[in-house]
């Protein structure tokens, strides 16, 4: 007759883990069954690999829809981890028992598809249902709560371990207590959680029956304490009843693997029944118990670690204070009638003794200590998709380690290694793997610097698997992803920004994919602002694509066509705009103009002629015409006198004030530095202003104020200084530069730019 021992544990409970380890040593079973989806069976042997470092998580995803996935995290102090490792080292049979994830994922997909079948409350609970972790009720936390304990591990230690009984008897007593907990459950039989639970337990029993038939001498079952009473063979319902529960369940094809996990992710309680608040503290407890040194107390070693962390933050934490904090924690525990200090008492003692009553220093070290920054590792033999393997290889060659710490990476794109890193991060972004997020480069106008914030979240493993459908390598996958997104893109602007991304990610294949869609769409596009907005990205592609070895003749062809078409439609498109529309249009015109300036040999005549039509019109919105005038002035298409005349005309008394203001705004706005350094423009404005009579001046003053108030205070001051100090110089004829003296400097400059020697 097979002897079965059911060990009901708390997931991620160091106390449970220790008791499981002791029980296994005592029982020495020849088969170990551990709660977990059976799909992991084929991978359990990997946990014995020396390269497998917890925390890790089993990842099971639907093969054709990886977004639907479940994680099964394990820390070094997880009883499951202990049990599996023991079984591997003792070379005994080990198997996962639970409802197959194939069913769980299919059921979840079905529940999502028909929300009406589900209560509203579940929707809120599982808002993050995509790739949520498995739901597991924590019976030990319930028992601890009933006994007045906030921390289930403390209860375990006080109530279970200090009973003096052997480890096996402890679990038997606990199972009896859980029977009581389960009998208090008042949820109806058709409550979704109850249905799910009975299915899972039926599935566990089905696997157990199979194992028992194999005729082992002694079997140990490690499962969540809540399930323990249901898995005692004496209480098994008939096999047919279980079979009935499990027939006709939907099923999907799934794949399983191990992924590295982080302490921080373990600490998150959302959507995960066995979430724990202080993984770092549990880790500490477990290490302490495993060391088994009766001379050292848990709290002392913990307080010493706190003191070290505080010192690292340059806070005083003397040894004498640590001793006092220790005594304080013990006094608090005694006052509260507890056998020893727990995390709450230790935290309070630290705050009172080491931090002078302030909670702030403690918060500084909380992440480091209480949560921990550890990230697991999985061995290379772990089955994985080709894309993930390619990514790992790329990470290794680029020496870019995936860590859970948020890190700011500044890349100098002139260096090959750093450029390669940038390319990788850009490609991952296109694949939807948000490992790095581009940040503000700060105060630089150079294009060779990039700043990224990188942080590897374990959930990204799912994103990697999901991206696997695009291709087997990061480069090929990104190119496919871009092409796919281009086909689905709804606007020209989206397409052109995709094009820009392709450039950054060095994806020539992607560019050709995007271009095919773009040429088709732009031919059909009637919307002038959309056309204008594509000019800049296209022009960038032309300008810098050559540098990166991309064939740009096709891009150039489209760019030319877009510019012509935009120019033709510009005047019509500017008609009848309200203030918001005019602002958008002005932005589009600016961006297109900037784009055109990037491509030197692009004939801008058509464009400038179109701008001229807009500038001449008295009927269009002032903001747009003013802007057009300014662009023409900069391009030398209208002269200063003409602009002066227009200024007077536009700002004369008869012109409605809002129109006048908009025009002036269009003319002058933008970068104030231009106005500061462009004496020409400043002189035009200055002369006009000096020429108006007093009455008109009073009328236009508010408009001028309004425009100038958009400039920053220092910029306005500088303008004022220029006008007051060099007032005379403004009116002087532009001085002819002394070319002879400037010649050496000009020649050097020309050499830098790669020009021919200038005469």
């Amino acid at each position, binding site marked *: 007759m097979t002897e079965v021992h059911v060990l009901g544990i708390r997931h991620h409970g160091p106390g449970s883990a220790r008791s499981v380890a002791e029980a296994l040593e005592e029982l020495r079973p020849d088969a170990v069954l551990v709660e977990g989806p059976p799909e992991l069976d084929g991978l359990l042997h990997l946990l014995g690999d020396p390269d497998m470092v917890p925390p890790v998580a089993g990842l099971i995803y639907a093969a054709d829809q990886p977004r639907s996935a479940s994680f099964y995290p394990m820390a070094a102090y997880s009883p499951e981890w202990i049990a599996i490792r023991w079984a591997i080292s003792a070379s005994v049979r080990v198997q996962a028992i639970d409802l197959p994830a194939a069913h769980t994922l299919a059921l979840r997909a079905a529940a999502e598809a028909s929300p009406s079948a589900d209560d509203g409350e579940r929707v809120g609970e599982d808002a993050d249902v995509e790739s949520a972790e498995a739901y597991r009720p924590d019976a030990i936390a319930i028992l601890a709560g009933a006994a007045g304990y906030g921390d289930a591990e403390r209860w375990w230690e006080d109530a279970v371990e200090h009973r003096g009984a052997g480890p096996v008897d402890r679990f038997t007593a606990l199972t009896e207590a859980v029977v009581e907990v389960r009998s208090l459950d008042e949820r109806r039989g058709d409550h979704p959680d109850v249905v799910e639970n009975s299915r899972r337990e039926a599935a566990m029993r089905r696997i157990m029956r199979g194992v028992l038939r194999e005729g082992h001498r002694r079997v140990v079952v490690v499962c969540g304490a809540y399930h323990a009473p249901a898995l005692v063979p004496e209480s098994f319902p008939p096999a047919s009843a279980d079979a009935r529960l499990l027939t006709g369940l939907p099923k999907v094809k799934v794949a399983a693997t191990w992924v590295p996990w982080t302490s921080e992710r373990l600490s998150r309680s959302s959507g995960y029944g066995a979430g724990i608040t202080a993984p770092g503290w549990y880790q500490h407890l477990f290490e302490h118990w495993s060391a088994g040194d009766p001379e050292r107390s848990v709290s002392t070693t913990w307080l010493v670690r706190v003191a070290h962390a505080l010192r690292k933050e340059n806070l005083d934490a003397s040894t004498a204070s640590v001793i006092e904090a220790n005594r304080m924690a013990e*006094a608090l525990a005694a*006052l509260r009638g507890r056998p020893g200090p727990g995390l709450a008492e230790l935290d309070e003692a630290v705050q009172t*003794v080491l931090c002078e009553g302030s909670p702030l220093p403690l918060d500084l070290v909380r992440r480091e200590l209480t949560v921990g920054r550890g990230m697991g590792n999985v061995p290379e033999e772990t089955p994985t998709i080709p894309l993930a393997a390619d990514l790992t290889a790329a990470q290794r060659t680029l020496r870019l380690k995936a860590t859970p710490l948020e890190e700011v990476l500044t890349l100098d794109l002139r260096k090959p290694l750093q450029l390669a890193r940038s390319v990788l991060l850009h490609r991952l972004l296109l694949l939807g793997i948000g490992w790095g997020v581009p940040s503000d480069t700060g105060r630089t106008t150079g294009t060779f610097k990039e700043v990224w914030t990188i942080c590897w979240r374990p959930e990204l493993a799912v994103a990697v698997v999901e991206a696997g459908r695009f291709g087997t390598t990061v480069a090929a996958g990104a190119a496919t992803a871009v092409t796919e997104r281009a086909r689905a893109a709804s606007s020209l602007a989206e397409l052109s920004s995709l094009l820009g991304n392709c450039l950054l990610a060095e994806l020539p294949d992607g560019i050709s994919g995007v271009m095919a869609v773009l040429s088709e769409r732009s031919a059909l596009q009637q919307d002038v602002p959309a056309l204008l907005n594509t000019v800049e990205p296209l022009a960038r592609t032309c300008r810098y694509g050559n540098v990166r070895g991309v064939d740009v003749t096709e891009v150039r062809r489209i760019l030319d066509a877009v510019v012509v078409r935009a120019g033709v439609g510009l005047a019509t498109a500017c008609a009848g705009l309200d203030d918001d529309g005019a602002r958008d249009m002005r932005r589009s015109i600016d961006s297109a103009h900037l784009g055109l300036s990037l491509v030197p040999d692009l004939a801008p005549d058509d464009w400038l002629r179109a701008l001229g039509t807009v500038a001449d019109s008295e009927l269009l919105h002032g903001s747009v015409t003013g802007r057009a005038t300014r662009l023409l002035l900069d391009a030398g298409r209208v002269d200063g006198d003409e602009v002066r005349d227009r200024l007077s005309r536009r700002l004369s008394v008869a012109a409605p004030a809002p129109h006048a203001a908009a025009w002036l705004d269009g003319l002058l706005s933008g970068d104030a530095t231009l106005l500061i350094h462009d004496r020409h423009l400043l002189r035009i404005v200055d002369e006009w202003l000096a020429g108006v009579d007093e009455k008109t001046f009073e009328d236009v003053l508010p408009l001028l104020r309004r425009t100038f108030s958009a400039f920053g205070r220092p910029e306005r001051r500088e303008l004022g200084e220029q006008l007051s100090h060099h007032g005379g110089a403004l009116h002087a004829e532009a001085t002819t530069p002394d070319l002879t003296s400037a010649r050496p400097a000009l020649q050097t400059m020309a050499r830098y730019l790669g020009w021919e020697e200038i005469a």
Partner: protein
Amino acid sequence: MTDAPAVADVLRAHAEEGHADELAALATFDDRPRPPHWSLSPWAVTRYILGGALPDGTVITPKYLGSERLVEIAVASLATDRALLLLGVPGTAKTWLSEHLAAAISGSSTLVVQGTAGTPEEALRYGWNYARLLAEGPSRAALVPGPVMRAMETGTLVRVEELTRIPSDVQDSLITILSEKTLPVPELDTEIQARKGFNVIATANNRDKGVNDLSSALRRRFNTVVLPLPDSLEREVEIVSGRVRSLGAALELPAELSALTEIRRVVTVMRELRAGMTEDRRATVKSPSATLSTAEAISVMTNGLALAAHFGDGTVRAHDVAASLVGAVIKDPVQDRVIWQEYLETVVRNRPDWTDLYRACRELDELD
């Protein structure tokens, strides 16, 4: 020496006298281990402070309405023979808590050193009976022990109020007392060794911190507990009404607090001005220079109670509290007045059921 007046006759009874019955009842039921020279166990001390009911039905009134955790930390500190420093802005019950802790632990809250800018070293150590000193020369009999020294000799708690007001050099004479628990008397070539049970509870104000900031050597010898301002309106109203009621009884004021409404309004005004935001979080107000703590709300209400008793109809109304409320808010006659006017016009005026308070405050303004 004159006879001490009867307890009922004193203006304010010591904590151990006012609550003698509760302390006695707690001592009867307290079967937990007591640290040496403690009159109650730490558990009973926390019960005394936080309130509750004993098995025989004796009700212990709560002395401190606030976080249970903080009281536990404070008691545990004293149990480890570490000195306790209570920090907080004025009016957060620091002195109140220290008095009750001393009463519960040592049975006496009368050993006090009041810290001022002029506190001499003698107050912390010992002085001399100069007539005797001149007549007999230095002797033990000529020594006049200060409160700290007496506490050391009897093994009880001594309180040091407003520790940061005491000049730094005087403060530092506490270091030896706290770390080595001895008080050397070089004149007699001897020392006083503290008996078990001796400890120090100091209070300090962290608003005007820096007056005489503690040296880090001294600071290290204290366990610090920061007492916060009450976190919710309800709790603060509860504290104020409880205290005002007991003060009113002690001052034998015949007036009664008809309802909580007046207290609630005063507490709301104080909280809003303190937080710089109205309770509904919809409007921002400016904060005056005054602290506007719970203690001030209590004194405003007691004042209103006296006005109502002697000059009103015996029920506290808006015009009874208005004068002291304005006085509490306006500490700086120029800036605070503007802030108060702004608050009055933008917040008080717009609350329909606050019309009487608004009118009363406006009338006061017109008198100026």
